[in-house]
């Protein structure tokens, strides 16, 4: 029992005296970019509380979508600074967690991982974003569910098909949820359509794809070493395409 008390006491003393030289204000930052923001920027402030200068050996992010920059290469004793992490949102949705690894010449804690958590507001959640029929299948309607994101009040949505070969029907199912029924006129040939989905009070556009696919290909015998080019796409508009003869549904 005495040994246990001694261990606990020693641990506490060690913790109080073990001060790292590079002290971070926080190593985890949560950002809430607004709708339409292209970037989310996190600031990680630090101070050199030690007696010797600290040199940054490297500052690198976990992915190419995040750029991390240090204000200075060397931090003198007592000096403060910050590392800026700029996260390019692009077409990302939901909670994104990106890390920045900072390496210094400070011993023994040479590596620090900074975490940037960005909660990207999603106005409309579409599931699935792709519906397809195989050639020759019965042209039965398939349903895409559109749900308003948290903190968004969506009363009406408009769905436009880029191809007249697909019909869409929108039905509100309540509580910000919509049912979009997509039906091809026929499944005899490989055709595709980009469905543009927009809510009434927002300029942002969302997309889904509807397609008649070719029949499944017969697998080639194993051992073929080269990767062949993907088969030529059927007459599908590149998205976000300007609809050629749009058929639109509003609800």
């Amino acid at each position, binding site marked *: 029992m005495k040994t246990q008390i001694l261990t606990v006491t020693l641990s506490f003393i060690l913790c109080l005296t073990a001060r790292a030289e590079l002290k971070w204000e926080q190593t985890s930052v949560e950002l809430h970019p607004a709708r339409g923001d292209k970037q989310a920027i996190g600031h990680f402030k630090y101070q050199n509380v030690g007696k010797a200068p600290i040199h940054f050996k490297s500052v690198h992010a976990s992915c190419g979508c995040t750029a991390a920059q240090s204000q200075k290469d060397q931090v003198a004793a007592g000096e403060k600074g910050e590392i800026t992490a700029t996260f*390019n949102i692009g077409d990302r949705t939901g909670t994104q967690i990106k890390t920045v690894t900072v390496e210094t010449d400070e011993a023994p804690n040479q590596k620090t991982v900074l975490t940037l958590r960005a909660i990207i507001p999603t106005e409309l959640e579409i599931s699935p974003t*792709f519906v397809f029929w195989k050639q020759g299948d019965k042209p039965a309607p398939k349903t895409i569910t559109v749900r308003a994101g948290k903190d968004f009040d969506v009363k009406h949505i408009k769905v436009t098909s880029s191809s007249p070969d697909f019909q869409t029907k929108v039905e509100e199912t309540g509580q910000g949820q919509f049912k979009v029924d997509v039906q091809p006129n026929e499944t005899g040939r490989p055709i595709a359509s*980009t469905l543009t989905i927009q809510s009434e009070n927002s300029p942002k556009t969302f997309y889904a794809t509807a397609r008649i696919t070719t029949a499944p290909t017969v697998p080639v*015998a194993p*051992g073929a070493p080269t990767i062949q080019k*993907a088969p030529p796409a059927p007459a599908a508009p590149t998205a976000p*395409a300007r609809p050629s003869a749009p058929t639109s549904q509003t609800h």
Partner: protein
Amino acid sequence: MKFLLARQALILAALSLLPGVGQAIYFRDKISWRSPIPPSEMVSVDQARQWADSAIWIDARPDNEFAGDHVPGAISLNEDRWNELLPQFLAAWSPGKKVVVYCSAQSCDLAREVAERLRKEAQLPDVFVLEGGWEAWLKKNR
């Protein structure tokens, strides 16, 4: 008494190993000891090459890296331009195709994120992440 204490602690520690090992075996398909991506969603370069024409390769790296070099025939699909690039990929996909997503090396999360979006949003079956990424493909092919 000290030996009794140590013996009791060791017995408890050993007993706890049994259900732990059992769970590790039960969850072996859902979690890999080597990487955060489960084994059922990973594919090696050799396995992917065996699929030949029934595989579609996706490059999840940023545009400039794709432009520099990529697997011949691979389609670029990254989250920077997801809305623009996804329909181009979907135009090339057909049922029965296996999708192989890669990015730079094992520690890169881009391939995993793109693969997850294809599974969840587009609800595509047979989506895999290439073990070892672009570097593993280079090693086997160049």
